[in-house]
């Protein structure tokens, strides 16, 4: 089976500081990969670089999604190609209703793929079902995007967007941070319900806790901008017990000089 995502020797920087330093990763359709690692390892940066956030520049290396050159695409083109990033801190867009926002996003994606537009009535039905699935009241569709939502509601709102956009590759950026155990379970159930042979996940997390609910096929440890260890789900438990220190690489030379 060919890869959905292939990252080869990726180097990337933010504000002229190298953060990703030779990242390699292969994700096949249907797989769930967990990326763990200490603070400052480059976990969030990886998600931003892959999704093409402004200010994150790729120095070298290559990334393909479904065989297409991801790095050659604009941010919105990457989204339309099936890449979805669930934010660690979702931002508010006051006055723009969730429903309006989501319909515009789904319309833009369908149009780019040459698919027929969904009618407003159909979409509303789907959106209501998605709300129910992530345990958000339907009234949230009318509220401004993330406007006045609690931390847990924002995370569930991200998940609802994922359900409606039906991406091929979902990157969950520390989706578990700030969630209590009940909210965590709701999010995990939502993710698990979306696991399929056509959809892959990269679950970025600091803690092993989330992985009790979302069972990964692979666990990778990201440290100082590259993957230093890979294994199966049991690696997460090992990390929980021993911490990250034993895996951290020697500091790079340029940092010593600095």
């Amino acid at each position, binding site marked *: 089976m060919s890869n959905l995502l292939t990252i080869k020797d990726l180097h990337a920087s933010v504000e002229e500081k190298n953060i990703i330093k030779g990242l390699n990763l292969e994700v096949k359709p249907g797989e769930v990969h967990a990326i763990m690692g200490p603070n400052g390892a480059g976990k969030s940066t990886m998600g931003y670089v892959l999704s093409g956030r402004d200010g994150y520049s790729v120095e070298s290396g290559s990334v393909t999604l479904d065989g297409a050159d991801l790095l050659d695409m604009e941010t919105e083109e990457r989204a339309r190609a099936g890449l979805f990033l669930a934010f660690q801190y979702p*931002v508010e867009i006051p*006055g723009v209703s969730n429903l309006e926002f989501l319909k515009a996003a*789904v319309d833009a994606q369908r149009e780019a793929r040459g698919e027929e537009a969904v009618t407003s009535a159909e979409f509303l039905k789907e959106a209501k079902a998605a709300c129910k699935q992530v345990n958000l009241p339907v009234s949230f569709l009318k509220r401004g995007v993330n406007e006045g939502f609690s931390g847990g509601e924002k995370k569930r709102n991200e998940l609802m967007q994922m359900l409606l956009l039906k991406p091929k590759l979902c990157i969950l950026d520390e989706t578990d941070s700030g969630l209590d155990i009940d909210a965590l379970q709701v999010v995990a159930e939502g993710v698990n319900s979306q696991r399929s042979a056509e959809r892959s996940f990269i679950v970025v997390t600091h803690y092993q806790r989330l992985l009790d609910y979302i069972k990964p096929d692979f666990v990778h440890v990201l440290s100082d901008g590259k993957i230093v260890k890979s294994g199966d789900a049991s690696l997460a438990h090992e990390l929980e017990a021993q911490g990250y220190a034993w895996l951290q690489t020697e500091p790079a030379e340029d940092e010593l000089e600095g």
Partner: protein
Amino acid sequence: MTEQIDKALAREYEAGFVSDVESETFTPGLDEDVIRRISEMKGEPEWMLEWRLSAFRDWLKMDEPDWALVDYPKIDFQAISYYSAPKSMKDKPKSLDEVDPELLRTYEKLGIPLIEQQMLAGVAVDAVFDSVSVVTTFREKLEEAGVIFCPISEAIHKHPDLVKKYLGSVVPKKDNYYAALNCAVFTDGSFVYIPKGTRCPMELSTYFRINEQNTGQFERTLIIADEGSHVSYLEGCTAPQRDENQLHAAVVELVALDDAEIKYSTVQNWYPGDEEGKGGIYNFVTKRGVCHTNAKISWTQVETGSAVTWKYPSCVLKGDNSIGEFYSVALTRGRQQADTGTKMIHLGKNTKSTIISKGISAGKSNNSYRGLVRMNPGAEGARNFTQCDSLLIGDQCGAHTFPYVESRNPSAIVEHEATTSKVSDEQMFLCQQRGLDPEKAVSMIVNGFCKEVFKELPMEFAVEAGKLLEISLEGSVG
């Protein structure tokens, strides 16, 4: 990111074409003779000429105001032509069939068909082209309800008592520099009278178009809502794209008698000048309404055009329990400058006012809210709520808020809220990550920001305003 937003903001001014209409235009210059000639062209009675001349004499003694946060070269009032009218209008066409087709085409191109059958049902239009009213639609239907809707030049002849009684009653001749100038040289505009207890059966609308070069447009609007009546009035404005600045100095007076209600909406889209600030309309406008007992006046404005805007639609809440409202969206980009807001003057008991102002600044523009809330000693139990929000797009523009509060009654309550926010990189990234292109993202964020004001616009206009904002923000895309 800034670059992307700039691109998204690059707009084409769709109303920038020039109509090829043969016009009779005064040579530039202003003195008493010019005023006499304007009055003569309009065939005005003597009292009207005297009124103009006294305003002109006052104006000569006045100074141009300099307190607004706008910067423009000194206007040479002798370089402006004060009258221009299509030649075909000289014989006063009796019906649409007699109106120059080029004029009708102009309005059609602007999306305002004047042929009644093609119009939006329920909206009557007065079309003002340079210094004259071209046509007023649905007049017969309105007359059935007793509503008078006609060019003000005609009202001076046909309804002199109403004009004499109310013209200058809300905005006195000497009110300010531009108002005095307007009194002296105004050429046309709309006149509305709604009789007692009547609900105007249609939306009334005036569409102002400046076409001729080097002319100013000085229109005058007077709306009188008699006791217990109700009217909703809309105005729109556009002008061709020209390298020279042009002056527009209008006066609008609203009179809401006891229990009457006037809703006045504006979509102002005068030519704003180019990216470097060349050309564009100087928009110096005085708009004010007086509310008698239990009356209500609501101003809603969407201001996207003009190089310089100086405009403060205001309410004098004279009668007890009267209500004043001001809802405003002002968008500036390029080198545009806007200094706009409102004045709510509370005189009567239990009077209420609401001010919602949304300023959006982009490019190298400057956008100021300037508002006054005055509670006079007699304004027992009066209330005001003000909310001023500014949205910045990019880092080279300015947003300013100048709220003035004068409370002389201890029982009056004044509330003021203000926020300044930016279209943030995070918001843009969220939108794009979900598949929206940057243009759609900016337009969506800005529309969300303006939502509270848009919902106050009449239905037909809300759609137009949303579209206008989208055109303003998106260039010709979409």
